[in-house]
């Protein structure tokens, strides 16, 4: 430390000799806004810098004119790099907030901030999962996300199973997912959230209901952004985990960066496999010939294995005159998933049904700051194939017995006719984000996003399956414009924004007589919103945000299925008024830390898309209105580095606001929408019972997940004694982790669902019981 200060002093001295200079000054604070003493602030690739005083302030008196990257470091905090533009006679003032780094934390931290976009200072309702401290544990991304208040994830099985994430009551395709700001729409099943081991992820940002314009997509209920970047550093992160159900999860994530030459090469990869052969209890066995019920048995799943793999290669340059960063990325990903049963029905048992996915993506990235203008752009082209393979002529039951069908029986396991359907998507997606900073107070952001999908379907087994036989295309454009006013002294930040959505499709459908008709649905909508943050004191802050958000219909909702689901070119977007209000109180001294936060949310959603049948046909229409009102509270208590307790609880009341159903009064008008968890929460306790020295550490974690029982069907309807329920979940996990050499070597053990509770996220669909897992990881940088 003293050495560092001495060196800095020396650099300082040298710095005096440079011509054309202006001062950079500001403060460095921690997550809670408390000043940080002794943090170093250094212009990257130079010897010019300063050290903060007791009030967190610093001043670099003579910074050369031009664009710089300012690197701010402090022991125990993650280094932060901030672009600055120094102009003659114009003193630059900055407020830099540092996040606690891996070494300082016992457990993942949920903090209301995003390093990249400095969202902490903004009014968005955002939760950020810093994975630095948990990447070496045996948690997957879904498990991490479940610890965010307001988030609930319902899984239909083990590794690779279907899941439905809900965020403040909205779910499914109403939530959009991003990797490094790139929308993951139509990237295929190998690149969904649950495939990524946490080792590949630096940070997960969860935007609740109100989404900043930099994430260019039609997110009705919020967005989740995964960040993977480790800019400008060389590192290697290798991990391997093995667990129950023959589960293997491996990842290699490494980068070579040459700071001198300004180029880098990066590899990210994962491999996942699980047999998912967990015990199913009391499943009904039906005889194969006639379908009669023979009783129930307990049996291991036997056709549910899942494998996925991905490799991403990235090569590029950084800190060049013409670009702060520019790179080319290539991604290839594959997966194969066997299904034991459909995601919603255990009465039908599969022995052959499977899906396969392959995704190939190419992307170029560019970013550059020209004085006050910051530009970031990417362009992506992808080819995604998803196959649904229902070609087995065998018929299975839960006992594992099977028979072969008669030769003239065309039935598949799920479908009426055996089928091998390939859906080929070409995705083309690009985005340009520009930020212009007028002065210390105001900045303007503009995002232009274009997303095009071309889909073709081909069934190589069933010639009568005409799903997407004629190619269909859909074009989405999202334009976002935002202005940020920020007054550090007054603790106020206001970001009003506008979003424009444009949708254009070309839909070809085959009529009864085999004729092809093409229609070109199009619509335009304008959404808007604002996020306001007010820090009354470093300890107490308020946030509120609002957005009128849209979700543009999915391809299949507009296009239909080529036969029974008729196209509806007139289908409009779903829309929602999303409102958040949050209060946070954060205090700490040397020993104790307390961070309490509560948020209220309100979602008034209209024109939900629902299937409307007509005879054997039907179409998707805008039919339902739903309101979601709720509150979430989170409390974090910390004693030194020895003990950390974090809890959160979410209560939401989601009601049907559709007054009429096909002209008749909706009997469920204003009733609680069933089959959605309404009360759920988490508790995590982390303790460090053994710490032989500064570099080695043993940690113990206990985690509890609670989901209150909820009804499958409207609460007030039906005989209360005979109602179908999804029972209460009270699942506890236990983990032990030993870290050596400041995280270079890690050994982690986990027991999930310690008490082997029968758990259901969805009605009658069992989730795995108790499981064990061991993980080894190596990290060097």
């Amino acid at each position, binding site marked *: 430390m003293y050495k560092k200060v001495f060196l800095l002093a020396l650099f300082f001295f040298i710095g005096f000799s440079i011509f054309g200079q202006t001062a950079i000054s500001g403060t460095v604070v921690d997550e809670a806004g408390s000043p940080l003493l002794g943090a170093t602030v250094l212009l990257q690739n130079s010897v010019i810098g300063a050290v903060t005083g007791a009030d967190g302030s610093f001043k670099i008196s003579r910074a050369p004119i031009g664009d710089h990257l300012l690197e701010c470091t402090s022991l125990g905090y993650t280094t932060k790099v901030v672009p600055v533009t120094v102009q003659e006679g114009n003193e630059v003032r900055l407020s830099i907030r540092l996040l606690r780094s891996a070494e300082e934390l016992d457990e993942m931290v949920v903090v209301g901030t995003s390093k990249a976009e400095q969202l902490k200072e903004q009014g968005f309702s955002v939760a950020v999962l810093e994975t630095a401290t948990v990447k070496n544990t045996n948690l997957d991304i879904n498990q991490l996300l479940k610890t965010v208040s307001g988030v609930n994830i319902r899984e239909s099985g083990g590794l690779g199973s*279907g899941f439905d994430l809900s965020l403040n009551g909205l779910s*499914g*395709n109403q939530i959009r997912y991003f990797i490094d700001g790139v929308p993951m729409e139509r990237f295929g*099943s190998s690149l969904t959230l649950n495939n990524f081991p946490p080792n590949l992820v630096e940070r997960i940002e969860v935007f609740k209901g109100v989404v900043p314009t930099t994430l260019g997509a039609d997110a009705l209920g919020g967005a989740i952004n995964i960040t993977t970047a480790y800019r400008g550093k060389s590192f290697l992160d290798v991990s391997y985990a093995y667990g129950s159900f023959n589960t293997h999860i491996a990842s290699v994530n490494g980068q070579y960066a040459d700071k001198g030459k300004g180029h880098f090469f990066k590899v990210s990869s994962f491999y996942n496999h699980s047999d998912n052969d967990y015990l199913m209890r009391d499943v009904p066995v*039906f005889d194969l010939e006639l*379908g*009669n*019920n*023979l*009783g129930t048995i307990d049996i291991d799943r036997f056709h549910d294995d899942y494998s996925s793999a991905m490799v991403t290669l990235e090569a590029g340059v950084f800190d060049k005159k013409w670009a702060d960063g520019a790179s080319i990325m290539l991604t290839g990903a594959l997966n194969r998933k066997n299904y034991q049963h*459909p*995601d*919603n*029905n*255990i*009465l*039908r048992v599969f022995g052959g049904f499977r899906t396969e*996915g392959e995704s190939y993506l190419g992307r170029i990235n560019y970013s550059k700051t020209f004085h006050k203008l910051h530009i970031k752009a990417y362009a992506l082209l992808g080819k995604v194939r*998803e196959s649904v393979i229902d070609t087995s002529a065998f018929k299975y039951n839960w006992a594992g017995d099977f028979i072969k069908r008669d030769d*003239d029986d065309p*039935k598949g396991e*799920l*479908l*009426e*006719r055996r089928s091998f*359907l390939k859906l080929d998507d070409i995705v083309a997606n690009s985005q340009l984000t520009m930020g212009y900073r007028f002065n210390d107070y105001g900045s303007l952001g503009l995002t232009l996003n274009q997303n095009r999908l071309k889909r073709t379907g081909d069934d190589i087994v069933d010639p*009568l399956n005409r799903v997407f036989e004629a190619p269909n295309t859909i074009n989405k454009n999202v334009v976002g414009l935002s202005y940020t006013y920020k007054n550090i002294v007054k603790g106020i930040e206001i970001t009003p924004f506008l979003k424009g959505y444009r949708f254009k499709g070309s839909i070809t459908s085959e009529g*009864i007589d085999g004729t092809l008709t093409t229609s070109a649905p199009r619509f335009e909508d304008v959404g808007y919103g604002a996020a306001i943050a007010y820090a009354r004191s470093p300890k107490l802050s308020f946030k509120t945000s609002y957005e009128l958000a849209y979700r543009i219909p*999915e391809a*299949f909702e507009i296009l239909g*299925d080529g*036969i*029974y*689901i008729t196209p509806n070119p007139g289908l409009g977007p779903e829309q929602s008024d999303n409102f958040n209000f949050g209060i946070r109180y954060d205090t700490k001294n040397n020993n104790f830390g307390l961070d309490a936060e509560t948020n209220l949310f309100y979602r008034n959603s209209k024109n939900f898309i*629902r*299937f409307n*049948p007509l*005879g*054997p046909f*039907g179409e998707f229409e805008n039919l*339902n209105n739903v309101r979601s009102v709720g509150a979430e509270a989170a409390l974090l208590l910390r004693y030194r580095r020895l003990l950390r307790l974090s809890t959160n609880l979410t209560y939401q009341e*989601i009601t*049907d606001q559709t007054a009429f*159903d*096909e002209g*008749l*009064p909706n*009997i*469920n008008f204003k*009733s609680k929408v*069933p089959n*959605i968890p309404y009360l759920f929460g988490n508790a995590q306790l982390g303790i460090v019972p053994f710490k032989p020295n500064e570099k080695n550490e043993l940690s113990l974690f206990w985690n509890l997940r609670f989901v209150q029982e909820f009804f*499958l*069907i*409207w609460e*007030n309807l039906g005989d*209360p004694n*005979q109602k179908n329920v999804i029972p209460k979940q009270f699942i506890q996990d236990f983990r032990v982790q030993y870290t050596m050499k400041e995280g270079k070597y890690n050994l982690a053990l986990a027991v999930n669902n310690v008490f082997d509770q029968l758990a259901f996220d*969805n*009605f009658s669909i069992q989730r795995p019981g108790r499981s064990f897992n061991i993980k080894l990881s190596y990290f060097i940088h």
Partner: protein
Amino acid sequence: MKMKIPFSFGLARPLSVLMACTLLLGSCSNDDNAPMNPVSQPDPQPQPDPDPVSSGITFALKTTGGDETEFIINEPSLETGMLSADGKGIEQTGWRFYYPVGKTLFASGYSDDNQCAGYTADEKGEIVKKGEFIFENSLEMFGADEAAETLLAMEIPRVGFANRRLHFVDANTVNVSKIVGTRIFEDQKDSIVAWPTALQVNGDKLFVPFHKLDAKGFFATVSPDSAFVAVYDYPNVGTEPIKIISDARTSNIGVNGATTGMVKTDGGDMYSFSCGATMAGFAPASTKPSGILKIKAGETDFDTDYFFDIEAATNGGKLFWFDYVGGNKAIARILTDDSGPAWSAYGRDVFTQKLVIIDLENQTITDVANVPLHAKRYSSPILVDEGKVYVSIETATAADVFVVDVENATGAKGAEIVGKTVKGFFKL
């Protein structure tokens, strides 16, 4: 909130295909339609049918909103008050067909809800589930033997050439005793398959009227200007009909969504109805009039001397549904205006159906008085209770039970339906 796909009549396979796609695309999960009853305990012991203690009437109520959940409810009277599922009834996990056989009510699921349960009244008169079985493709056509001990239920694959699998289900045990696969009729050269519209047992024969449809699954009626009936031996139903009879005086028998394309009278005569209208799903529409054909008791051919041209008759029009009510009379729905677009008779945009009593023997039609014009998409077989017939009548703004006095052809408004419709009334 997640997207909901309510299963509705006729939408089995397509959604499965879509589901299969969405399964892996992960864009929409349909666990709302999780098709299983929590009570999955099998009952291997055949239970004797207890005599119903309750004199009430059981009905299948479809609610409004969301996914239109259905409930099996018992009420002592349907003549006044409100029929509601508020706090009562056995909830169903999705769209159901309801078909009574004696004292057993079968509720059969749809699409991936591939389960059929049997319900009856216990000693206390409460409705209880007495068994269940699963099937492959949806069971979409139903009938019963004359002794009311066996449910006949048929899987009807929608696309391509495949067996229509006829299930014989013991009404006491709710166990399938055998399955016979038959094509009924098919012509691979011209791509034609059969869509049955009734399973009518008469003595030692089973009569299966059918539509001829394009095998590609478009529901295109390729021979709309004739009536067709396949005749099988019963109970030893073969894989091929013993013969197929046709009649060019009217169109294909029956309509999609009704199980009563052909009915049997007390005397053993059989009558069938033909519609032929575009708005009832005929594509193309028939050039033949909507009418009623007859097969005399003991015979296996159409009675050439009998044809009741409903369109030419007083109070007539195109028949959309009928069912037998005793005394050689049928209760029926007639489209007072059949000019609507394809399948629109199944929707809730046009309310042009009237209720009539047809004297099958004397060939007269009498409008049922006091019943408004309405819409109807699906009906279970009707319940005739002491000369009264209960029907659910849905207009643009209301759904009510009407009690029809068959003899006088008058209707009286009964209980108000708190929901979309009552799909069937049963006495268990």
